[in-house]
């Protein structure tokens, strides 16, 4: 049982730390497309967090809306805005800032 709680805590710690880190990176990223991908990853991790909080129904909604549809909508919005893919062909090879 001892190992079980320890493992559970480390899982939760990774999820929590990952959420904070992803949120920060998504907000701070100058490249909007990168921010969208980070947001999708954030949604996935958030769904896992809801699962750990024993709220599978909320996790279901988060998986469908947060990770699935919002990502697609944000990409569509990004294209509609006419912002060129910062990481498209013209900047293919240079190492960009992290």
């Amino acid at each position, binding site marked *: 049982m001892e190992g079980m709680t320890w493992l559970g805590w480390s899982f939760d710690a990774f999820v929590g730390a990952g959420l904070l880190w992803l949120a920060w990176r998504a907000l701070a990223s100058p490249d909007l497309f990168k921010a969208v991908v980070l947001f999708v990853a954030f949604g996935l991790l958030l769904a896992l967090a809801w699962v750990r909080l024993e709220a599978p129904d909320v996790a279901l909604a988060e998986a469908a809306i947060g990770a699935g549809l919002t990502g697609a909508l944000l990409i569509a919005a990004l294209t509609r805005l006419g912002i060129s893919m910062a990481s498209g062909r013209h900047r293919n090879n240079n190492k*960009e800032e992290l």
Partner: protein
Amino acid sequence: MQHLYLLLAVFLLLNLGAGMWRVLRGPTAADRMLAAQLFGTTAVAVLLLLAELENSVALRDVALVFALLAAVTAIAFVRRAWAGTEDSNDTR
């Protein structure tokens, strides 16, 4: 068995974290998208493990939704953002 499920869930989560590096580095938008795809598949696996761990059928439904919607973002990306120049100009 229970230990193994949780251990592997943690392992897959770390795997996901390693894949994060690809999102940050790119270099092309497609590489970032691929990493997101990896997250989708890994998340399905983690959810299935957690479902077994907590003996909850509802969690398998969450995994099912993940699997269903895994492709949506990627297809939106290919259709909208990364299609050739002729598609990026249209304002549908």
